């Protein structure tokens, strides 16, 4: 039997069906489908896929276990390198990472690595497989600030090493972007909840409603509450606006506001109190995952949606699968278009978006061609809602309230090595707070590296302390 050139088809809700619900779009492989897809992997000796996975999961090995039907064994392989496979299998930009480098992709379609990873992770959850074994107790407390993927993975590793870990979260629900940003139809909240419950079972404490820098400070945690080390993983949550006229009109919102109302506050479910406004004709400005999520949420709430993006289709930074799904669901794309002004009716509600046409000019220092306006190309889109999805930046709160912490000019926390060591002893940082808006897998990896560094830091401190006291 020759190797299948194309992927084993995966069940999805039809575009028509899913346009009116928030249930997950992709239904995942069953075991037979997963085993069949697994047979497509050639088990390369020098697997290109592993090189392209930011956390170097042993992909051929876990796929081999799927082939032989030993899913628990596959789960153990993944667990060595990733603590959030149910999430990353769903949201990693696989087409530019693992799958983008898979040799099978040269002649046909790459192996569905993400979907297989997701299959294993979901199987693990369904079968209550506990992968973690807790090592002996270590007498040190570590504070993790922020409960996104960076914080969760750091807490997970430290708890497994035996540390007493408390996660402090500003919002009323843990999970970071996984709960307030990424919608249910891409990442069911029950999966995030399950990841968090796993952490609780191994002893991680969560203190919600605590805004570090306001309610408490890094200093008070270390000096008054006895935390030996702190990991800052506060993300990059501040929304950007364009600075064009009319941006504060009614009907203009940031994608963060729109998505927070929908995901975190569940405004689309009738029995929750938080309101959400839905336009009939919605324009989303931007081309990343955030823009796709906002557009597809609006579609589900009954809007006609256009995405306005200043570059061309090729440059869209969103995951390929999301763009594909968005088109299927009826989102209309206006490429090479940039808003210049938002106009309103006499009651102060948005009714028109003035745009100009763009063309791609010379490449900038990063090699990306810079879009520039075409003279005299202004035109209008009539609309009653505009959602700004222009990117986000780190919150300066902790930097402004913590002694000895250095920041980058653009607002990120300055780290001195790849393990997230900051300029202040005992304080580590990682994820979007350090890199700026990036990806779940990179945030997760930063959390794990910092956990290793924190362990080393605390062991060194304890051994110094020990030498000192035994010398006396």
């Amino acid at each position, binding site marked *: 039997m020759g190797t299948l050139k194309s992927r084993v088809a995966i069940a999805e809700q039809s575009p028509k069906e899913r346009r009116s619900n928030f249930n997950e779009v992709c239904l995942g492989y069953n075991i037979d489908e997963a085993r069949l897809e697994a047979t497509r992997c050639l088990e390369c000796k020098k697997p290109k896929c592993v090189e392209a996975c930011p956390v170097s999961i042993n992909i051929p090995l876990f796929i081999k276990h799927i082939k032989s039907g030993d899913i628990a064994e596959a789960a153990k392989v993944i667990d060595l390198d990733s603590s959030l496979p149910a999430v990353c299998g769903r949201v990693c930009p696989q087409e530019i990472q693992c799958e983008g480098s898979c040799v099978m992709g040269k002649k046909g379609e790459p192996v569905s690595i993400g979907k297989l990873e997701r299959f294993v992770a979901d199987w693990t959850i369904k079968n209550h497989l506990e992968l973690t074994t807790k090592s002996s107790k270590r007498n040190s407390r570590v504070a993790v600030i922020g409960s996104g993927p960076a914080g969760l993975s750091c807490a997970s590793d430290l708890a497994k090493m035996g540390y007493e870990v408390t996660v402090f979260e500003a919002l*009323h629900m843990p999970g970071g972007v996984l709960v307030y940003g990424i919608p249910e139809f891409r990442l069911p909240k029950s999966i995030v909840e399950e990841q968090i419950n796993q952490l609780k079972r191994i002893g991680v404490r969560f203190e919600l409603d605590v805004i570090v820098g306001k309610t*408490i400070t890094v200093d008070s945690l270390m000096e008054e509450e006895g935390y030996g080390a702190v990991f800052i993983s506060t993300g990059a949550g*501040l929304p950007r*606006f364009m600075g064009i006229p009319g941006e504060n009109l009614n*009907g203009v919102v*940031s994608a963060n506001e729109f998505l*927070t109302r929908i995901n975190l506050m569940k405004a689309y479910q009738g029995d929750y109190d938080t309101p959400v406004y839905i336009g009939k004709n919605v324009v989303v400005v931007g081309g990343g995952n955030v823009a796709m999520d906002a557009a597809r949420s609006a579609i589900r709430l009954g809007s006609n949606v256009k995405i306005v993006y200043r570059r061309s289709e090729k440059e869209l930074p969103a995951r390929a699968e999301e763009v594909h799904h968005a088109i299927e669901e009826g989102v209309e794309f206006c490429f090479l278009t940039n808003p210049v002004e938002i106009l309103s009716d006499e009651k102060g509600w948005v009714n028109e978006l003035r745009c100009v046409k763009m063309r791609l000019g010379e490449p900038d220092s990063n090699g990306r061609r810079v879009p520039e306006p075409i003279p005299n190309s202004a035109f209008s889109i009539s609309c009653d809602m505009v959602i700004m999805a222009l990117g986000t930046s780190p919150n300066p709160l902790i930097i402004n309230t913590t002694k000895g912490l250095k920041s980058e000019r653009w607002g990120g926390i300055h780290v001195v090595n790849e393990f997230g060591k900051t300029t202040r002893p005992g304080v580590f940082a990682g994820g979007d707070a350090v890199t700026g808006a990036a990806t779940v897998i990179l945030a997760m990896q930063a959390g794990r590296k910092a956990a290793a560094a924190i362990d080393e830091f605390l062991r060194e401190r304890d051994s110094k302390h020990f030498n000192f006291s035994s010398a006396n």
Partner: protein
Amino acid sequence: MFKILRKRELAPDIYLFEVEAPRVAKTANPGQFVIVRAYDKGERIPLTIADYDKRTGSVTIVIQALGASTRVICSFEEGDSFVDFAGPLGQPSDFIHFDPDKINGKRFLFVAGGVGAAPIYPQLKYLKERGAVLDVIIGARSKELLILLDEIREKVDNLYVATNDGSFGYKGFVTCVLEELISKGNQYDQVIAIGPMVMMKSVAESTKKYSIPTIVSLNTLMIDGTGMCGACRVTVNGKIRFTCVDGPEFNAHEVDFDEAMLRLNMYRSEEQKRLVDIERKHHKCKIGRTM
């Protein structure tokens, strides 16, 4: 969970709650607010800190039943709990950074409308302890809606009261009293106005004429209160600012009030629908109970 230690009715539909929230009490300062959620399907709403006791770990809020969330909260009794009570949020009042001699002997005029009388209380307390001279104008629609008069009278040098219907004190708006005090020759180093947006707007217009530095505390829409959603954005001095992190207090003469007032109504029709739903639900519960 954040337990309600004390509930007091201040006026029809206006209640004071003392809530157990030791972490918030410990770091609270005048001018700051909390974001609370009443129950697991509730929304996040901002409320100004009306008092705090670092020793007992309690924080006081004063809340007026307006819509769905505030009505549910006002139906809470002592012993009930908020599921969430996060803070202190926002910047403390500017004067907590002042040198003592910049406060001692300086004349402040507070203008408070409606429930705005509650948030000025910790500010008065702070300034009084540091020797400021304090005049206060409190306004309400009518006599029974005036709150905390006795508590405030105790902290201030002069208290003026205005009601729209004349049922107590001056008949008319707080701004009329303000204009009168100024035209009588009273000099103030600083005016601080807290109340409905329209009131703050007209106070700002008055004091601008006389070039008196004026601070207002903006009650914009909010969700997270940490800078993450931008729902609270306002235009101040031509720039976009986030009320939850840059405010809530701003230089009154730089705020675009007309825009801020429009933005407050953004979710008005959804909010009203929700209120009807909630009332219907509550009505049902009550019927259930009596049966």
